[in-house]
């Protein structure tokens, strides 16, 4: 049985479930399309809220555990909200031998985040590592949102953060 019309919950207005319904309809409610569905949902919310995952599971007529299982298996799915600006530092082999770790340490120290707590309190920044961005010729590489910065240094990484903060303040 398909779920009832979108439910309204505090913090998750019905309007947003509307979007989930559209995504599900686009993929014809096929459970084999679970990964593209979750990708589209994450694009919308910037992470996968638990309620939405349950909603998706019911719509696809699969157990919520299966959706949760897929969501936790793949590195791209986030179960907690990410910051407005996501800084992804490449720690692939090429970047690693070109000293990417000091950059990571500098960014974490500057934004007061850690491996376990990658997002700043104000939800402005998230610092993550990725295994390879495939831009090894420019190592070490930092991805700020979708913009690639090559041959980065700890100082340059911190300057980029300052620039974003300054831009935010102007707005």
């Amino acid at each position: 049985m398909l779920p009832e019309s979108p439910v309204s919950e505090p913090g998750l207005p019905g309007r947003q479930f509307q979007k989930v319904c559209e995504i599900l309809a686009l993929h014809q409610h096929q459970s084999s399309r679970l990964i593209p569905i979750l990708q589209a949902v994450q694009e919308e919310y910037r992470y996968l809220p638990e309620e939405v995952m349950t909603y998706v599971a019911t719509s696809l007529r699969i157990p919520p555990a299966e959706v949760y299982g897929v969501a936790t298996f793949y590195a791209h799915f986030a179960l907690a909200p990410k910051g407005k600006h996501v800084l992804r530092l490449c720690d692939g082999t090429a970047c690693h031998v070109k000293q990417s770790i000091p950059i990571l340490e500098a960014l974490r120290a500057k934004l007061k985040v850690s491996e376990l707590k990658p997002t700043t309190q104000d939800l402005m920044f998230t610092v993550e590592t990725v295994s390879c961005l495939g831009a090894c010729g420019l190592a070490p590489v930092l991805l700020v949102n979708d913009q690639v910065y090559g041959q980065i240094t700890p100082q340059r990484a911190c300057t980029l953060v300052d620039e974003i903060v300054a831009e935010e303040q102007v707005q």
Partner: protein
Amino acid sequence: MTLFVWQDSPTEATLAESGRAYRELADVAQRRVVICAGTGCVAGGALAVYAEFVRAIEAAGIDVVTELKAETPPTSNSVHVSHSGCQGFCQMGPLATVLPDGILYTRVKPGDVAEIVETTLRTGETVERLLYLDKQTESRCRGVAEIPFYQAQQRFVLKECGIIDPDSLPEYLANDGYQAACRAYTSMSPEEVCREIERSGLRGRGGGGFPTGKKWDLTRIQLDGQKYVICNGDEGDPGAFMDRSVMEGNPHSVIEGILIASRAVGASEAYVYVRAEYPLAVKRVRKAVADAEAGGLLGDNLFGTGLSLRVTVMEGAGAFVCGEETALIASIEGKRGMPAPKPPYPAQSGLWGQPTVINNVETLASVPRVLRMGVDSFRAMGSRTSPGTKTFALTGHVVNTGLIEVAFGATLRDIVYGVGGGVTNDDGSGPAELKAVQIGGPSGGCLTVDHLDLPLDYDSLRGIGAMVGSGGLVVMNQNTCMVSMARFFMQFTQNESCGKCVLCREGTKQMLVLLDDIIAGKATPATLDLLDKLARTVQKGSLCGLGKSAPNPVILIARLFREEFLAHVVDKRCPAGRCKALVAPHVIADKCRGCGLCIKACPVGAVTGERREVHAIDENLCTRCGACAKACRLGAIEGV
């Protein structure tokens, strides 16, 4: 689309005719400017350079053409401006090539464009300062033919990559595109296609090196019914970006390869699984699929045979293990990407239980070329057991980094010192001494100076316990700590272990703990034995390639760099000075003010020094209790 001369279904003749029409059109323009728009150059601002070229040429009163069309043909005064996929020399990007002059400008900024337009496009002169400077001869290189980085390569799969516009189907047709696919469908039987590829000796470029023709034949002989072809673009090896460059630079060659593979096995549906970290590759492959469909090269009634093929592009979601065939299949089915036991092989029971063939991007991109040039010419390249060429991503401590392609049988020396231009220090200065080259990703192995003259191919590498892998080559200089590198690879495979097999899940974790002990100076010689034993157990007790090969780097590095491991374990010393815990206790001269607090704090009298002079620690007396560092107010003591 008016350049397509066919009405219903294209034939070899009409495809060739379309290509000729496009080439004639292209030849009218006086010059062509190709701006590299691979990920590397785009990061350096190539798109702004492209826009500036269009603007500046127009401003100079020269007719500018960005897309060649029969309705609006160029004149002899026109300049054709286009972008291309990765030209390989990422480090020197953004790159701009002026044709037919063959001038390659490096590190082009939007501010340089007006000068190029005024000098090169108007008078044919070169802008010297933007040419590549060969540091060895101190001379400027005018074009690709003079640059050592390109001279030592043999570009086959990457031949058109970096020249043609990846978003343009007519341009691919102008390079004899889709003619091989047409021939496979119209004048060859599936069996003949398999035989031809088998005879060519083409082996899987994804790492394993399994003969492609044989793989196809195993799927072909399965009972009729739904069959699938999957193109594996889940290039997860850190330090490798060959497949990305092929998908970004020449996506139609991959699609033509998929068509031929589908003909060979009798598949009517195909998937391209691309890593999510490659948004540009996803975009270009999607566009290529849409254009091929619109041009009647994909879809129903292919080349008038009544056969059909639908291609779906799927984005991965970030799991290294999905590069493994059975895990990739699970991921396409919408499940957790966990490998399944083999047999049954995908050839018998793959996607949704149907016969499936999975090929790597580079393999598929090679296929149309093999058919086009003929088996004998293909076999003339490379070594006897590994014909053809291989693309490598050359990175790390080397002068020229980027995407390269050499024939199998080339030596490591050719690559590192020929194409790569030698080894550098951490800051990019050189020359430095070579310590190791990591090949084949985190499950591959390390090559050392002893292997410099070994001809590289599938079998020679297997012989020394390494593998070609997908083709990442990371060069490391003398300052690299090999124990830390072994730990780095272990950390990677540990993170990426899917958790299905206990030995892979837990064993890699324990191996990591042992390596951490070594790096922290807590290990004993027994640790090394335990590590070795555990490594071999993990190899035996894991289902898929990830677990089976996860211990490879550790085993190989521990064997090749035995002394370095022993230095960490027995002498508690890191020869490269990288492992913080093993740095000899010492005073940082710049910070020390000679206050004497550390002398007072040291319980064994290991610190000495005059007042107001830099102090020193006697390594042999020091017990590393840390009292001196605690007492120091300036943070001038390290390694205790």
